[in-house]
Structures are given as C-alpha cells and as structure tokens.
C-alpha cells in the first residue's frame, strides 16, 4: 500500500522539477524568439550599412564632365559589398533626367524617391530575394543641375548566414545558462527539501512504541505538519494509555470477586448440609449479580472514556442532560423508594461536550447518590462562578474522609461503599477531564454533592 501510494503520488521534487522545466522552457522560447529577432535586426543593420557605404561611394564617384555626367565606379564600393562574399550585386545610376547612366537597366524601383536621405527596400534581383538601398546626390552646376540616383542591391545569403550565426551563438549561450540553471535548481531544491528528508529519517529511526513528540529541527513551513503529527501521536498515546488502564482496572477489580466466588463454590461443594448449601448458593448468586453489575460499569466506563477522548465535542445545554438523566428513570430500578427532584434554572447552561458520555457520567453520579446517599436526591444544572455545572446532591453525609481522599482516582475499590461507586466516580472524572473540566465532590449543609464543572461555551443557546 505504502509503495503504491508513493508511486502514484507526485513527489515534491518532481513537481518542482516540472515547474522549473516549464519556467525554463517558456523563458527559453521567449529568449530564442528574441535572439532570432535580434540576430535578424543586427544582420539587417550591418549589411544595410554596407549597402549605403557602397551607394555613397558610387554617388561620390559621379562627376560632371564635358560629356555630361561621368561615373568612375570605384572598385572599393564593390570590395565593400564583397564582404558578403557569396552575394550577387545589383547597381544602377540614373542621371538627372532619369536615364540609366550605368549598371543594370531593369532593377526594381524604390518605393519613393530618397530625397537627401536613403531608402531601403526589399525586392527580387533576377529571381533571388535581395535588399536594396537608394541614395541621391544633387548637382548644381552651370549647365547641369538636378538629382542623380544610385541604387545598390545585394542578395541575402550573407545576411541570413549572419543572422543565423548570431541566433546560434545566442542559443548556445542560452543552452549553457539553461543547463547551469537546471543544475543550480537541483541543488537548491535538494537543499530546501533537506529538512523533510531529515524528518523522515528521524521518524523512520524511531522505536515503534515511541509516541513522544517529534523534536527534529524543521523549517517554519513544516512545523504545522510536525505539530499535526505530534497531536496525532498524542491521541494515539492517550488511547493506548486508557486501554492499558482499562485492562489493569479490569484485572484488578475482577480478581477479588472472582476469587471470592471460587471460595464460596468450593465451600458449597464440600457442604453436606442442604440448608447451609442453599444459603451458600444464594450468596454465590448475589455475588454473581454484583459481578455482572461491575462488568457492565467497567465496559460502560471504557466506552465512555473512549468516546470522551475520541468523539467530537459539540455544544450542549447541561439542563437537557440533567432532564434526560432524571427522566430516564434508571435509578428507580436500583432503589425504587428514593425520590429524585430536577432543579434547573431559566437560562441555558451551554458547554462543549459529548452529550452521550456526559449523560452516562451524570447517570453514574445519580446512581451513586440513589444507591449510597439518602433521600431526597436532587439533580440540576446551572452556571457557577463562570463555569457550566451539572450536579447531583443527596441528603446523606457522603463517604467518610479517608475514602474522599481516594475518590476521583481510578481505583476506589468496591469495598469503599460496596457495589463499585468508585468506578462510577472515576467515569465521571474521566469524562470531565476529557471535556477540559473537573469533578468536584464536597459535603455541604444540604448534603453530599457531586458536580461536573465544565468551561462555559462562549455562545449562548437561544
């Protein structure tokens, strides 16, 4: 299960790797496009300068001679264009009347007259794409005035090669940076996730029975996780403890009555007198009933304590609990003659508790009072000194001082008042603790009072 789980669940490192890859890829695409655009631009500008240089060179070589305009086309202009070694060259010089002075007769015309400046344009040259530059030069001589136009063009091989070269270099650098970033990211991620590894190792290295809080040093982001883990382990620890308590309780509480039963049974087996044997059997019967009652209570307590520790606490009105317990009438079965009075106020008594465990606890208190105290017995709920309180009062004097000291502890022992009142109290105390409250026993003017005090819930029940 665990193996399958780790296989299916995406790892944190994997997520980060994917995120970094996507980031790098997107960045790489953007930078590549930028590099290509830049390469084109740079190549365009560099070779446009060659064109203008050559065109100006030719324009400067035009002079007004006796036979009109003369062009001494300079070799230097073509050597300049020759820097783009494999490109074909187009050129044309138009005189002031627009007649071709020299060069190719049928070159594509510039889109507009380059008056005083330079005009670049793209057009074909004998079936191959080319780039042209057109410049003009003004003549203002005695018998010759006007503008001559020089067009110089070149095919695009060198431009494209240069643009490609720039792009290629940029991409090489980019690839290098990309690889470096990936490696750096790997190092960073490993370092950042290191504490998690340490946590994992710390947990894996633990003794299976060690449920103490994890105290490995982890970064802030992981502390919440560790806290949750510690809380979880705390609950497991608590439940284990109550289970241990239950078992030891059971062993402790059952040992004596079972031993007594066996003694009585031995006695009965060896008793020849039928009357006395009957008396012994009656005693065995009575003891067995008590034992059954004790077992019920122990199981109830285990259940209640388990619930109190694990069930979700909700808002309850303690008056409802008191009413429910009083009306359930369990006490009538124990001591039919005892009178039980309900005493609740007008205002609600809200508290956060598990209703079932709480009513079980109160039931236990009531049964104790009915069984061991004196009539009349009162049950009620109210707000006392800022705490929610549910209580049971009987008119008797309560247990003696020595027993009082032991009450509230788990092992009160049945010998105290017979029939296991201590167990009932310990249930009530455990429930009160589980709800962050306490069980208080005191002897007052009106009799013996057992009360469960809980923190008052902030919102009042409407």
């Amino acid at each position, binding site marked *: 299960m665990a193996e399958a789980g780790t296989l299916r669940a995406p790892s944190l490192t994997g997520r980060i790797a994917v995120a970094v890859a996507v980031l790098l890829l997107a960045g790489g695409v953007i930078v590549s496009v930028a590099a290509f655009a830049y390469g084109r631009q740079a190549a365009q500008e560099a070779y446009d300068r060659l064109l203008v240089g050559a065109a100006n060179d030719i324009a400067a070589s035009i002079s007004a001679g006796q036979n009109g305009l003369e062009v001494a086309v300079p070799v230097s202009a073509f050597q300049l264009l020759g820097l783009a*070694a*494999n490109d074909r060259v187009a050129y044309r010089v138009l005189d002031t009347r627009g007649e071709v002075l020299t060069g190719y007769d049928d070159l594509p015309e510039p889109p507009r007259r380059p008056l005083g400046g330079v005009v670049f344009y793209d057009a074909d040259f004998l079936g191959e794409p080319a780039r042209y530059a057109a410049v003009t030069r003004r003549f203002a001589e005695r018998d010759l005035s006007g503008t001559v136009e020089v067009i110089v063009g070149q095919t695009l091989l060198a431009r494209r090669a240069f643009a490609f070269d720039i792009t290629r270099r940029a991409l090489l650098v980019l690839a290098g940076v990309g690889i470096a970033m990936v490696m750096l990211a790997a190092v960073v991620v490993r370092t950042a996730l290191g504490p998690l590894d340490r946590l994992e190792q710390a947990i894996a290295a633990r003794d299976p029975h060690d449920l103490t809080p994890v105290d490995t040093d982890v970064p802030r982001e992981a502390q919440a996780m560790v806290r949750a883990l510690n809380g979880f382990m705390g609950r497991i620890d608590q439940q284990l403890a109550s289970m241990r308590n239950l078992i030891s309780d059971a062993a402790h509480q059952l040992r004596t009555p079972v031993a007594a039963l066996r003694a009585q049974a031995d006695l009965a087996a060896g008793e020849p007198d039928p009357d006395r044997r009957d008396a012994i059997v009656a005693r065995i019967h009575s003891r067995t009933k008590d034992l059954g009652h004790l077992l019920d209570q122990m199981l109830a307590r285990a259940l209640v304590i388990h619930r109190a520790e694990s069930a979700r606490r909700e808002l309850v009105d303690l008056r409802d609990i008191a009413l429910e317990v009083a009306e359930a009438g369990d006490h009538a079965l124990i001591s039919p003659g005892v009178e039980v009075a309900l005493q609740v106020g007008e205002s609600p008594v809200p508290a956060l508790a598990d209703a079932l465990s709480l009513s079980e606890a109160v039931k236990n208190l009531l049964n104790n009072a009915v069984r061991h105290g004196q009539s009349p017995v009162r049950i009620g709920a109210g707000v006392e000194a800022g705490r929610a309180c549910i209580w049971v009062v009987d008119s008797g004097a309560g247990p003696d001082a020595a027993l009082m000291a032991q009450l509230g502890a788990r092992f009160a022992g049945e010998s105290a008042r017979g029939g296991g009142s201590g167990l009932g109290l310990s249930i009530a105390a455990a429930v009160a603790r589980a709800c962050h409250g306490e069980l208080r026993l005191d002897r007052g003017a009106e009799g013996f009072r057992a009360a469960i005090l809980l923190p008052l819930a902030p919102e009042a029940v409407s």
Partner: protein
Amino acid sequence: MSARARLLRLAAALVLAGCTAPAALAQEVRESFGPADAPVRLSIRSTTDIAAFGPVIRAFLQRRPGLAVDYEQWGSNDLFDLSQTDCRGGGRAADAVISSGVQQMVKLVNDACAAPYRSTFTAALPDAQRWRDELWGISREPAVIVYNRTLVPPAEVPRTRFDLLDLLRPQATRYAGRVATYDIESSGLGYLFAFADAQEATTFGALMEALGRTGAVATCCSAEIIAGVAEGRYLLAYNVLGSYARAAAQADGRIGIVLPNDYTLVLSRALMIPRGAAHPGEAAEFLDFLLSPPGREALSQVLLVSPLTGKESGEDGAALSETALRPISLTPALIVALDRQARAAFIELWRKSFPAE
C-alpha cells in the same frame, strides 16, 4: 589527327560558322571527342585552344566511358555575348563554359546565369578561385614578361616592373618601339590584366606613361606577340599569358620568360555550368575531374596549371616567392571591369598612351 586534316576541319568549321551563326558571333573551332554514338554528348564552350585542352578532355573521357564531348572554341567577348543570349533563353546553352575572361564569367554568375554545384573538390578550392559555388577557377596561369634571349642581354632582363621602367627611361633607349603588350580594347584578357594592374599598384600609371612615351606596341593576341618576340620584332612583351608563353618557350629557344618579382598576376580560367545546361550532372563530373589530382596532372601537362613558387618549379628565375603572387579573385569586384562607364574611362585613359592606329 594530322595537321592537314585539322586544317581542313578548321576551314570547314569556319565556313559553317560563317553560313549559320549570327554575324557578330563566330565560333573559331569545333571538335568532337569520344565515341560518335555515345548516349550523352557534353557540350563545352571555351576560350582555350583546342590544341591545349584536347589532351585534358581525352584524359577525362578515358576515365568516363559512354560520354562524348563536343568542344567549341570561342573568342572571349563572343563567348560572353553568346552565353548572355543563352541565359535570357535565346539559345541552347552549353553544358559547361570555360573562359579566361573571368570578369565576364563573374558577370554571368551575377546575372543568375549559372547553376550551383558543390563537392569535396570544389569545397577544397581557395576562396579566390570559387564564387557562390557557381563559378570555379580551374587553371593557374601567370601574367609574365616575355623577352628575346638573343637580343636582350642577361643583365638587362627585367626582373620587376621597376627594372622595366629603368630600361625605358633613357632618352635613346633601344627598347623604344620594341616593347609589346595586349591591345586592351580588342583583347579581353589584356583588359583584365591591365585592370588588375591598375588595382594592384601605382606602378601601372608610370608604366603606362613610359610605354606610351617610348612608342610601345599594343596589339592583339598572345600568339602574335610571342611570335614577334621570337622573331626579334619586339625585344620584350609585357603581361603575356604564361601558359602560352611557356608552351612557345619549350618549342623555341629564343624565348625567355620572367615572372615579375614585385608581383605576378595569376589568372585562373573560370568554369561555370549554365542554368540551361542539358547535362549538368556530367558537366559537374567534368569539373570534379579537372579539380582532382589526375585532372590537375593533365592540366599541368598542357601548362594550364603552372608551377609558380620556388619549391614547385625546378627552373631558376621562373620561380618566385608565395607573397608575390596576386591571384585575380573571382569576386563581384570584377563586375566593375565590365561597367560601361568604368570601362570607357579606363580605355580612354589607356588610349592616351596608346593612340589607335
């Protein structure tokens, strides 16, 4: 083939050319190599003498059976005009065009008349002998000074252009009127060499002035110039194509050759495969052969690939250092040589020294 048969053939070709070709364009000689029934006939047009190029073509056909070559020999200007016409769809293009007028070849390539080709052999060519993978320099021929061994004493043989200037400087120099060079107006090659000289050094202006002052002779054609030197009509000839000069020198002991030490122009005949070629694949094979070791060997046998530097040639005096070589690069800069205005201006300048007869 006997000389007589060749002469008859030449005469027939000339008559044929006179009957059918347009008036301006005249094919000089035509010869076929290889089997008459070959499935593919490669058509080559060239300015190179058949006598010189024939052995090279035979060496090619030996290695490449099933192929025949129709070789046409043309004057460089006519070949240029014809190729331009072919390029514009006016005629049936040859499969390969080879010309010593490399400026014209560069112009043809610039005018998008050539088809590209690339192989390990073409890629191995130096940049100066290759342009756009459409034009390749296949030969290596220096521009040399030719002199008459009997009439020019060894001490006076000019080793550089400065030596030549010194010979022409004295008032009553015996070289006056007895130095020859190409007439650049009628010889495309002469124009190219003069144009390259003008780019190369300022010596050219002084040289032109000296040649003009001493009444040097500007005339056409390598053969005529070399024959003139051999016969003693001229003592010296400047800027003669080395391949022809060396062939003549091998046959005639009176002819001496100098590769100028200050710098020596080196021409590389250019080959292109026209866009309209019917057999571009076979033409490319021919090109690869010319650039391959056996092709280089065949070309150097006919002196079209000439040893230039000391370590390549055994001969004394004909060798010079690598740094003095000035190959005429196949670059767009040669287009200027064909610019109508530039050409007119250059010829006008030249005419001042060599008035037309």
